[in-house]
């Protein structure tokens, strides 16, 4: 428990503590979701119908797959398989891009129908639907920002692996970035049923 344990465990503990704050950050939005769902179950159900289940499911599947890539990339690096690590990381970054592109199409489709904060379609909706979309945009927007940050982080790490500054003997940066990416996945695991499936 002293300095002799080195900075590996210290860095990882720090990262986990940071992830706890992220959980609470999204937790605040889940508090709002729970209360507003309780107030407007009908409005939430009908607004949820408007979301595309296809987009949601595909995004869930690819995000879970990207988590597999990241997790496996750490094992690969630990075993010294540098090429495989890079391959897996590239896969993850690619998935991050696909996710964001999907999200872009999903949002633009809503925008095209006038469904966006203060948009032309909003006054015709029931209060429960309006607040559902408000929460939807804030939550998925915040999540999207996290996907972006995670993607950039992993790109930097991939260059580190390529350059050799992150290697079999010093991989905590990869592990921590991986943890961050898994958290992004974790949050989505809850966003998906709450916004797309509750119908």
């Amino acid at each position, binding site marked *: 428990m002293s300095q002799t344990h*080195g900075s*590996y465990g210290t860095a*990882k*503990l720090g990262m*986990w*503590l940071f992830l*706890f704050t992220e*959980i*609470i950050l999204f*937790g*605040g939005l*889940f*508090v709002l979701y*729970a*209360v507003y*769902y*309780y*107030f407007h179950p009908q409005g939430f159900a009908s607004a949820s119908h408007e979301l595309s*289940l296809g987009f949601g*499911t595909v995004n*869930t*599947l690819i995000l*879970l*797959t990207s*988590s*597999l890539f*990241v*997790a*496996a990339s750490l*094992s690969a690096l*630990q*075993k010294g398989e540098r090429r495989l690590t890079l391959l897996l990381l590239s896969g993850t970054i690619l998935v991050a891009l696909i996710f964001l592109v999907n999200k872009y199409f999903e949002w633009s489709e809503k925008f095209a129908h006038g469904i966006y904060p203060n948009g032309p379609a909003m006054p015709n909706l029931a209060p429960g639907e309006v607040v559902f979309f408000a929460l939807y945009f804030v939550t998925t927007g915040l999540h999207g920002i996290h996907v972006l940050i995670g993607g950039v982080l992993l790109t930097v790490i991939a260059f580190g692996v390529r350059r050799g500054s992150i290697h079999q*003997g*010093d*991989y*905590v940066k990869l*592990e921590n970035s*991986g*943890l961050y990416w*898994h958290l992004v*996945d*974790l949050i989505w*695991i*809850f966003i*998906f*049923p*709450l916004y797309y*499936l*509750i*119908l």
Partner: protein
Amino acid sequence: MVQQGHIVPYRTFILVWLTLMVLTVVTVAVSRLDLGAWKIWTALGIATVKSALVVFFFMHMKYEPLYYRIYLYLTLVILAIFIGLTFSDVHYRMTP
């Protein structure tokens, strides 16, 4: 100094990933059924199992010291308190 963490075999990860895929399909399928009030709880239950798999295997929580898990549970308990106690107000409001 060489960092020595636990190395998880690919096999474990692939099994976990397969389970996650199956659970995603299950949760979508179940959401088509008419379960009434249980719908949200089933969806959340499956999501909890999925997130536990991610946390314990993908995120190595299973291989970390005990206090990591204690802190994680503490965080979740705090979040549960935030949601639960808020409902002590909103659930009993006369004019929602």
